[in-house]
């Protein structure tokens, strides 16, 4: 493939970088990234990857845009309320960069379809907000051998790290299974300062680009935690756990399954104290 003059101008600030150059920009243009969830994390990831000129962005989400999403899900604008998130996302990506091929899937990511969905992609991004989905993505990427960039956000905090299956620690190496239901709240229940989604999501996009380009030191075998109240990052060194139920020496998990979805304990109006 070769770039048009317009594309050379569009990507000129990348091409100027010795670590990227024309060769790296071609790698970006040929790369396929699968983003699970077109919400708080999925928005900055998809927008920055689109701007960067990623060849194909796959987006899966079964939700429609809710007004309460607009505080952080920057892919979606006010007129999108009530519309399919993946459709809304596709339009924004096209406006930003028509070079990008956007594949949309208005569907839930399940144990039954996960392997099929991720198969064509080079890198997978976790932008989901339930523990069962986070564990499912981790397991699917391990079985498919796909690099995964994990992200999590809650209140004023965020977490991000990358997983190269078989080489670096996976989510289950650290967190064996979801917490007991009701113990750890979700964003919907506990709130989230919108900008944290942007901070963590843009780091996820950075990791995806580095994994594609094969440059720098990725966030493998280290977890990066961010606290917006202190504006402080903390890095926790991790390593593969020989007792990991998925990627350890004697795994008990040999096929995909879904942990049971926790039942929401709080309902928004009561939690907000405005009912």
């Amino acid at each position, binding site marked *: 493939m070769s770039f048009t003059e317009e594309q050379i101008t569009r990507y000129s600030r990348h091409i100027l970088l010795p670590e990227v150059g024309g060769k790296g920009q071609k790698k970006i243009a040929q790369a396929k990234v699968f983003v699970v969830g077109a919400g708080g994390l999925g928005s900055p990831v998809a927008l920055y990857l689109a701007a960067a000129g990623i060849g194909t962005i796959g987006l899966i989400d079964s939700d429609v845009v809710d007004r309460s999403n607009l505080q952080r899900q920057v892919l979606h604008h006010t007129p999108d309320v009530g519309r399919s998130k993946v459709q809304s996302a596709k339009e924004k990506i096209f406006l930003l960069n028509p070079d990008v091929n956007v594949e949309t899937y208005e569907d839930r990511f399940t144990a039954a379809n996960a392997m099929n969905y991720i198969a064509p992609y080079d890198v997978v991004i976790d932008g989901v*907000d339930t*523990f069962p989905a986070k564990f499912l993505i981790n397991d699917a990427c391990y079985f498919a051998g796909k690099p995964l960039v994990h992200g999590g956000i809650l209140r004023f905090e965020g*977490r991000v790290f990358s997983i190269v299956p078989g080489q670096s620690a996976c989510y289950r190496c650290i967190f064996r299974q979801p917490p007991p239901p009701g113990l750890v709240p979700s*964003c919907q229940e506990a709130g*989230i300062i919108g900008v944290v*989604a942007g901070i963590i999501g843009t780091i996820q996009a950075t990791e995806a680009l580095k994994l594609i380009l094969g440059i720098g030191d990725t966030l493998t075998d280290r977890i990066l*935690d961010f606290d917006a109240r202190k504006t402080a990052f903390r890095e*926790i060194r991790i390593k593969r756990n020989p007792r990991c139920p998925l990627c350890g020496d004697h795994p008990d998990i040999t096929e995909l399954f879904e942990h049971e979805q926790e039942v929401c304990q709080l309902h928004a109006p009561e939690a907000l104290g405005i009912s």
Partner: protein
Amino acid sequence: MQITINGKPEEVQAGTVMDVLKQKDIDPHMVAVELNTQIVERDRLATTNVQDGDKVEFLFYMGGGA
């Protein structure tokens, strides 16, 4: 004895990882625990001793994303 918890030096009573969790009032189901960069599985929290100078990381679950 003094140990480092999440990067900060702290004075705790000698004991197991579970004892430290109790002193810090942390529900063991809420965290993954790393002792000197090794994960301590939940079934070993009560049998793994913490020594003076150890580095402990408590990693709380963070499940949001949307």
